[in-house]
């Protein structure tokens, strides 16, 4: 993951990425951090995503799956 920007995550495009950056989640690993803090709970993470950057259901699902798979592989 390194220093990749938040837009590298699945489901997070330019608009959502910008919103996240404004909130302080400028790097992918920060969002990963949030995902982990929410104990990898799908529902909570989706909720959080929606509240923070206004992601729709598809975008939420993509992002969640992406992060979960990364965790399963590398954590």
């Amino acid at each position, binding site marked *: 993951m390194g220093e990749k920007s938040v837009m590298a995550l699945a489901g997070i495009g330019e608009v959502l990425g910008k919103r996240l950056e404004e*909130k302080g989640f400028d790097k992918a690993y920060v969002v990963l951090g*949030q995902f982990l*803090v*929410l*104990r990898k709970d799908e529902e*909570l993470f989706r*909720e*959080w995503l929606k*509240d923070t950057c206004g992601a729709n259901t598809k975008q939420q699902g993509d992002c969640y799956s992406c992060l979960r798979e990364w965790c399963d592989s590398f954590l």
Partner: protein
Amino acid sequence: MASAQLTDKELVSELKRLGYTPGPVTESTRPVYLKKLKKLWEEQPQPRGSSSCWLGNTIQSCIIKICLVPSNAICQLTFLSFSVVLHPFGPEFDLHYDVKDRDLILNLLLSLHEHLANVAGEHDCGDLKNSLNRSVSFMSVYLSIYLSIYPITLCVPFSCSLGVCWFLGRLIGADPAQPIEDVSEISRLESIHPRMSFFCRLRRAFFTVIHRVLFVLAGIGVVLGLVYYMKYRWRKEEEETRQMYDMVERIIDVMRSHNEACQENKDLQRYLPIPHVRDSLVQPQDRKKMKKVWDRAVAFLSANESRIRTETQRIGGADFMVWRWLQPSVSPDKMSSMPSKVWQGQAFPLDRRNSPPNSLTPCLKIRNMFDPVMEVGENWHLAIQEAILEKCSDNDGIVHIAVDKNSREGCVYVKCLSAEHSGKAFKALHGSWFDGKLVTVKYLRLDRYHQRFPQALGCNTPLKPSSSCMNSMSRLNQRSSTSSSLGFS
């Protein structure tokens, strides 16, 4: 904004209570968790006594009602189908909020108050195990208000004012003993007017009354018990003292008679060992019982009796405590020594001049047997009865004897089986000397006797002297055995 927000810890604990394990509550995760909490609350099955859900529901229904009413129109809140007009908060309250807000707040408070009362009442009536059940967690109240009326900000400030909370009931902080200073310290709300069902109140009142009555009865019982016990002790003491004096008198008599015997018989020692005296006075079966009385008598004698001296003598090789009679007798003539309840002989022979020719009735009145003023003790009348029975021991026809204790003439009434028996008794008693007094007898009418002593109607068994030693006859027997003829014959 209000200071009493849900702290992270409370949020976590609430979530945990509802069965969900949250992660850390941070700035970013907080809103998510709050939403989760709200969702969990709604999903929860409605338990009967849960305050938070109930409150959440009523407040929610209130909110729903508000929302249903068109927002442009002036909405009249018909929350509880009446509007509360009287409230204890003063005119600032009216000014601060407008009508519908005010109604909402007041109705909210009212329902909360009722709910607290019900909770407290339920707790008091039902199980009293967990005292925590009596109060309602402030946080759950606040939570339900906060979460349900989230869009409406007015309830938050009102619910956090201390004055409002006072109205609801008792505030309990984290430490139950300390008073509350600030709203943030409140942890539980408790109602001070518990509402209990009629049956429950009846039951409690009943029990209270029963308990009070029982206490009063127990107090009375204790007092009565004390009184009886004191009386009993007092009576026992009196009895023992009387026995002691009785024993002392008997000892003195024994000593005196021993002294007299010593006068005659110079071979005898002038002292008597104390144990021997005791064994002669007290029956073997009574010795253990009378031990205390005996000891007191001995102590009394050594302290208070001047005529008897306590010494130690060697008898038969063993040391004994003995008593020695010190008073020299006044004269060697034993007849002048004080007689005590013994028959002393006949004053005059009975002939036609001084006695009726034949016995008239079976009842006799015997005069001058005693002087009631001089008599001491409880049982001297028994000695009198014994004396009469012993005097008439050959005549087994006496069925009833009554000593009139109060008569100044010293009267004793005797009933016999028949006139013949009474005649024999007459001859035995009339004109005898008893205890230094001359005894006279006369006949009484039977019906008068029965009037006076109705219990004699049923007496048929002849009475016998109780002991065979015939104390009252001792003088007479002695005199008849010795050849000396003294005094009154």
